[in-house]
């Protein structure tokens, strides 16, 4: 493997079968990250949180016990 000839993550891009495998792995990670981002956003857009609870619409700024 010759890194100087152009490589993706240290893999010889001219080795097609290896490169295809690496690209698939690379995009699989991307899909996983994208899915995580979607899940996180779903928890922040006023919908239900990951635990199924509806987020509080109000923030308790302070309380005073009489």
């Amino acid at each position, binding site marked *: 493997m010759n890194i100087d000839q152009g490589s993706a993550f240290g893999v010889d891009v001219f080795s097609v079968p290896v490169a295809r495998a690496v690209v698939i792995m690379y995009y699989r990670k991307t899909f996983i990250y994208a899915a995580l981002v979607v899940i996180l956003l779903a928890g*922040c*857009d*006023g919908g239900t949180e990951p635990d199924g609870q509806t*987020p*509080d*619409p*109000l*923030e*308790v*700024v*302070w*309380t*005073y*016990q*009489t």
Partner: protein
Amino acid sequence: MRIGGYIFFGSDDGTVYCLDEDDGSRVWAFPTGGPVRSDVENFLVSYIYFGSDSGRVFCVDTWTGVARWSYDAGDPVRTTPYFSSASLLYFADTAGDVFCITTGDGDVVWTAQVPAGVESDPYVDAERVYFGCDDGYVYALDADTGADVWSYATGGSVTAPMLKLMEQIIVGSQDGFLYSLDPEDGALNWRYDAGSAIRGAACPRYGADAVFVGTDDGLVVCVDLDGTLLSEFDSGAAVTGAPDGYGPVYAVVFGNHDGRLFQVDDGEEDWRMDVSDSPIQASPANYGDMIFVGADDGVMYRLDPIEEE
């Protein structure tokens, strides 16, 4: 009551508190000698007024919490004193005594008596003082003399505060009806059957074309000024405080006896939040970007809406 960055409220522990609205720190506390069921009223910013189950009405310096004067009514005063532009203060006690005193030094102008206790906050216009009574009547007295003008019989005690809106006296009764009366002669304009006792004030909708009111069955109904139901929301537990709106919107905020706070718009729930394990009987004070509400466990809350990003 909110004045200049401070909030003022009474408690069943017999004290009226002034808190800094930013951090909830106590500025002063004024002991009254009995539970405070009256709201705090303000006059020209400098002084606040409130009644107490001790039987006294107090005038207290807004910023120092020092009493200027107090008036001994003799029996618990649970009505919020109503001040008029003539620098007069109107209130009543649980023995049925009605008072008009001066705001400056608490001198008596007149007194009157009705057959039963009064816990309904009065409304005063240029001519009359209106209030409900435990005997089921709504009374109107001459604001200058205290003389009887008219009375109207409902089917249950009238402890809800009075509202005058678009030349209608609007008040709920524990008979479950919301009444609209003519302020001139007490004639019935209309009544709406809400299904269970009404104890809280009617809240005008933005535009003053309808009112919201809560019921013991947990409903908050919106009724127009012809007595026609516009919307209804079931909160699941009694709503005894008045709903409160803020700004040019139809939405109102209210609490119920499950300790939950709701915002409802046109009969549809915007949101709800479990605030306390104790009932919320009081009316929330809704300022749009902040809401103050007290619960029966003696806790006052400041709650701010969380902005959606």
